[in-house]
Each structure stands twice: as structure tokens, then as C-alpha cells.
């Protein structure tokens, strides 16, 4: 049976939400990893026992460079976006996950013909409205730079999910 235009729009909105949830999760994970890497690097360079290793007598210049970089990072650490981004993304991902569960559950009503076109349309715009509210609330004045690599990964994950749960193959 051919799909109604409003049901199709709802399906596309739902798929987009799935991709965005995946995208934000990857974004959060990478930001966490970056923050952790910076902290580990700073911990190593500030460790007095590592400073005392005899090997640095041979490679004094390299150690000097490492120390210079670590001091530079220490100075600008609180201006790097990763930390704030991690906090915001954590809250957005939580909101979006809840939205996904709720609106994916409503897909049953949409696909089983239990709702009118107007109701489906309202539901679709409710997804958009709630996403926007969450982004405004948690991102504040900042925005997320688009990462194409994460986005491709998010789409692949979403396709695998759709294939698993909504595949038309018998």
C-alpha cells in the first residue's frame, strides 16, 4: 500500500531524529575522549617522577617541547570547548533519547491508520518543536560545529537500526 504524504513526512522526521541521536552520542563520546586525553597528557607532564627519568637527559630538547606544550594547554584549557560541550551534549542526548522512545512508539499509531492526517502532522511538528527547545535550553549561545565524519557514522548506525527493526524483508 502506498504511503500517505503525512505518514511519509513523519517517517522521515523519525529517521532524522534517530540519526541526530546517534550523531550527538558520537559527538559526546569524542568530546569526552578529547577531554580525557588532554587531562592524561597534563597529568603525565606534571608528574615529578616522570620528569626525573634519566632518559630526559638524552632528549632534553624533546622534553622541553613537551613541557612548553603542556603549559600552553594548561593556560588555555578552560577556554577549550570540549568541557562545556560535553555537559551540554549529555543533557541534549538524554532529552533526545526520551523523544525517540516516545515518538517511535507513536509510529505504531501513525502506521496502523489510527490517526488522522492532521494528528500525524501535529505529531511531526511536535518532534521538531521539542528538539529545538532542548537545543536552545542546553546549548545556550553556542552551536556545534558540523562534523561530517560523525554524521556519516550516525547514518550508518541508523540504517543498521532501521534494518533490524523495520526491515520489509520476510
Amino acid at each position, binding site marked *: *500500500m502506498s*504511503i*500517505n504524504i*503525512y*505518514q*511519509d513526512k513523519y*517517517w*522521515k522526521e523519525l*529517521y*532524522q531524529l534517530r*540519526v*541526530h541521536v546517534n*550523531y*550527538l552520542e558520537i559527538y559526546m563520546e569524542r568530546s569526552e575522549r578529547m577531554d580525557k586525553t588532554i587531562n592524561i597528557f597534563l597529568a603525565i607532564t606534571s608528574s615529578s617522577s616522570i620528569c626525573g627519568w634519566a632518559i630526559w637527559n638524552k632528549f632534553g630538547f624533546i622534553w622541553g617541547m613537551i613541557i612548553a606544550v603542556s603549559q600552553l594547554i594548561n593556560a588555555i584549557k578552560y577556554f577549550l570547548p570540549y568541557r562545556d560541550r560535553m555537559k551540554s551534549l549529555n543533557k541534549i542526548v538524554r532529552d533526545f533519547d526520551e523523544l525517540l522512545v516516545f515518538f517511535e512508539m507513536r509510529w505504531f499509531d*501513525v*502506521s*496502523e*491508520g*489510527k*490517526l*488522522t*492526517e*492532521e*494528528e*500525524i502532522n501535529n505529531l511531526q511538528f511536535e518532534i*521538531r518543536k521539542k*528538539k*529545538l527547545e532542548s*537545543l*536552545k535550553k542546553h*546549548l545556550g*549561545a553556542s*552551536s*556545534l560545529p*558540523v562534523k561530517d565524519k560523525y*554524521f556519516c557514522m550516525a*547514518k550508518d548506525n541508523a*540504517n543498521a537500526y*532501521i*534494518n533490524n527493526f*523495520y*526491515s*520489509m524483508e520476510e
Partner: protein
Amino acid sequence: MADKEKAIKPIPNPKRGKPKDFSEKSLPPVDNTPPAPPVKPPKKEK
């Protein structure tokens, strides 16, 4: 005094306060949506 107040008055920035479009700036739109599974037609309006 009046000159001093005038001097520290901030220059209005037309960009400041402009609402951001978060949906487009932060989350890229998705294309190539896989086809939807079979559906029943929507309920008729009364």
C-alpha cells in the same frame, strides 16, 4: 561627566541578540531516508 558616560556607552551590535537557528546550525539535515515499512491509510477526518 556627560562626556564620560557617552564614552563608555557600548556600541550597539546588530548581530547581538539575533536568535540563532539551532536546528540548522547544530544538526545537519538528513537525506536519503530509507523507505518506510508498509502502512495503513490514515483515519478519515469526521
